[in-house]
């Protein structure tokens, strides 16, 4: 249940503004790839192009190819809804649906698409997804309570459970821990480590230690200055990027001499 992503010569525009320029990157299946870089360098924007979520923003468009196991996401006739059902996403701020219970939040991907599911199957799916998100033990006695009653870290794990309940190939995470405390962050990082056994995980983070802890490969993005497009500077094994990068900019950034 995981596929690789190959990006070729991707440019991302907001209207006429070139936000991310010429990214070519290979994201391995069943691994964790981290995107690091300063604010505004286009990490999140690029991440959103991997499941066409950028199209929600008015005026956003791309040039180039994103191949999911060889199939171009931007090919003619590709429905973004199909893409998103295969490539899930977890956002910066936990966003469980406030009108739904914990159980319904997990089942949201199924129920909102009006797929028929028996109660027994639903119970199995809820338990499997919540266990997959390391949340089962904390919420199993209150599945019918609203998801918004959970703590921030629990809400974020609920969102991850919701994402894996639709059984995607790839999970994109956009700074999933930046709104959480260290304990919750640890829980999510442990979870990411487990998720990579089954899924391809791509994570954007501001926290270099986090990238070093959870990822197998790291991509460093940078921006030359305000109004310039963001660029992919370097991508490689996490160990290499942090200990022996080939680019001066990468070394400056990971060693804290940036700016």
């Amino acid at each position: 249940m995981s596929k690789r992503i190959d990006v070729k010569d991707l440019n991302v525009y907001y209207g006429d503004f070139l936000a991310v320029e010429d990214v070519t990157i290979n994201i391995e299946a069943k691994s964790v790839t981290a995107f690091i870089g300063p604010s505004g360098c286009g990490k999140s924007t690029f991440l959103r192009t991997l499941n066409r979520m950028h199209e929600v923003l008015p005026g956003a468009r791309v040039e180039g190819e994103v191949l999911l196991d060889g199939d171009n996401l931007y090919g003619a006739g590709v429905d973004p809804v199909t893409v998103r059902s295969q490539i899930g996403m977890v956002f910066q701020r936990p966003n469980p649906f406030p009108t739904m219970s914990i159980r319904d939040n997990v089942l949201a991907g199924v129920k909102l698409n009006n797929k028929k599911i028996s109660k027994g199957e639903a119970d199995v799916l809820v338990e499997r997804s919540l266990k997959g998100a390391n949340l089962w033990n904390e919420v199993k006695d209150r599945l019918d309570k609203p998801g918004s009653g959970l703590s921030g870290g629990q809400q974020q794990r609920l969102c991850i459970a919701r994402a894996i309940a639709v059984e995607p190939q790839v999970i994109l995470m956009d700074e999933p821990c930046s709104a959480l405390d260290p304990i919750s962050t640890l829980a999510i990082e442990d979870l990411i480590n487990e998720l990579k056994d089954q899924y391809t995980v791509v994570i954007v983070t501001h926290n270099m230690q986090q990238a070093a802890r959870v990822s197998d490969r790291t991509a460093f993005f940078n921006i030359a200055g305000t109004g310039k497009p963001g660029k992919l500077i370097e991508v490689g094994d996490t160990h290499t990027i942090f200990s022996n990068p080939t680019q001066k900019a990468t070394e400056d950034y990971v060693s804290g001499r940036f700016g």
Partner: protein
Amino acid sequence: MTSTLTPVRSKRSALTKGQLPKYAPYVVLAAALVVGAAILALVGFNAFGWAIVSAILFAVVLVSWSAAVEGARKAKDKLATCLVVGSFLVALLPLVSVIWTVLVNGVPGLLTPGFLGTSMNGVTGVYDNKAVEEGAPVLGGIYHALLGTLQITLLATIISVPVGLLTAIYLVEYGHDGRLARAITFFVDVMTGIPSIVAGLFAAAFFFAVVGPGTKTGAVAAVALSVLMIPVVVRSSEEMLKIVPNELREAAYALGVRKWRTIVKVVIPTAISGIASGVTLAIARVIGETAPILVTAGFATSINSNVFGGWMASLPTFIYTQILNPTSPANPDPSSQRAWGAALVLIILVMILNLGARLIARVFAPKTGR
């Protein structure tokens, strides 16, 4: 030993020095009322003047006392408090007065046997004359008008809610602030301001042209009312849909949910409490409209339960005709009693709708808690 434990009563804390005692406003109020009554007694007493003079005296004395003891900042604070409370009382005055008047005049009508259950069919001036001259019970009631009001308003709601809600969904979810969306917003704003009689004339003229001259039915009135309702529904629904966080839409999209399903299953349920109370308030806004119903549904004295055929009575037009053309021109009292009773029923209806809006908002509100 006792001296260290006994709290020192007589000495005031240094922190509370230079404050007016807590009872100061009450003392000033009592004094102002007494002095106010004395002043008014000189020029001829009346309650309204007494209240005004006392209020002015109260504000002046309290503020100057505070200025002398507490300093300028506290005095300004007291002045502002006086102004705010005074404005509140002034704003409340007409409301209380209206409710009181309608209650006093309306209760006898409402308590008349058969008031809610009978129509004015066959009730002529003869019976009203008898009621006044011989003390016979006042006959006739508002059943036909109540039925008419409920039916016309219900039909207007059935027309307005889908149109208004779908317009709001277009504006928020699909309009992207484009030219069409801005044009719609502009015309909705214009519609909010059109006088209700114009809406009535529009509906009347429209049905005269389409169905035939002289078409006056409950349905025509419902169309006129929906012209007034739609902009209110659009506006309130639009505001409610706008405050649904974008993150929820994105969360649904990221699960591979289509846009229309996201709107139907995520956005609207999240906003439903606000939308529902907005709709209820829109209903409350049009249920008392008189002019548009007068020119579109006419007025009837008998029960008509078919909104699509024949003239129809409604509470506002019932009140209007009972006051303007009493059933017995010689003895208008029974008519005015019925009119006040109908007014009371109308106010109760609006109040129920407002309470209903609150209830709906609470029932549908997203649940929190653990």
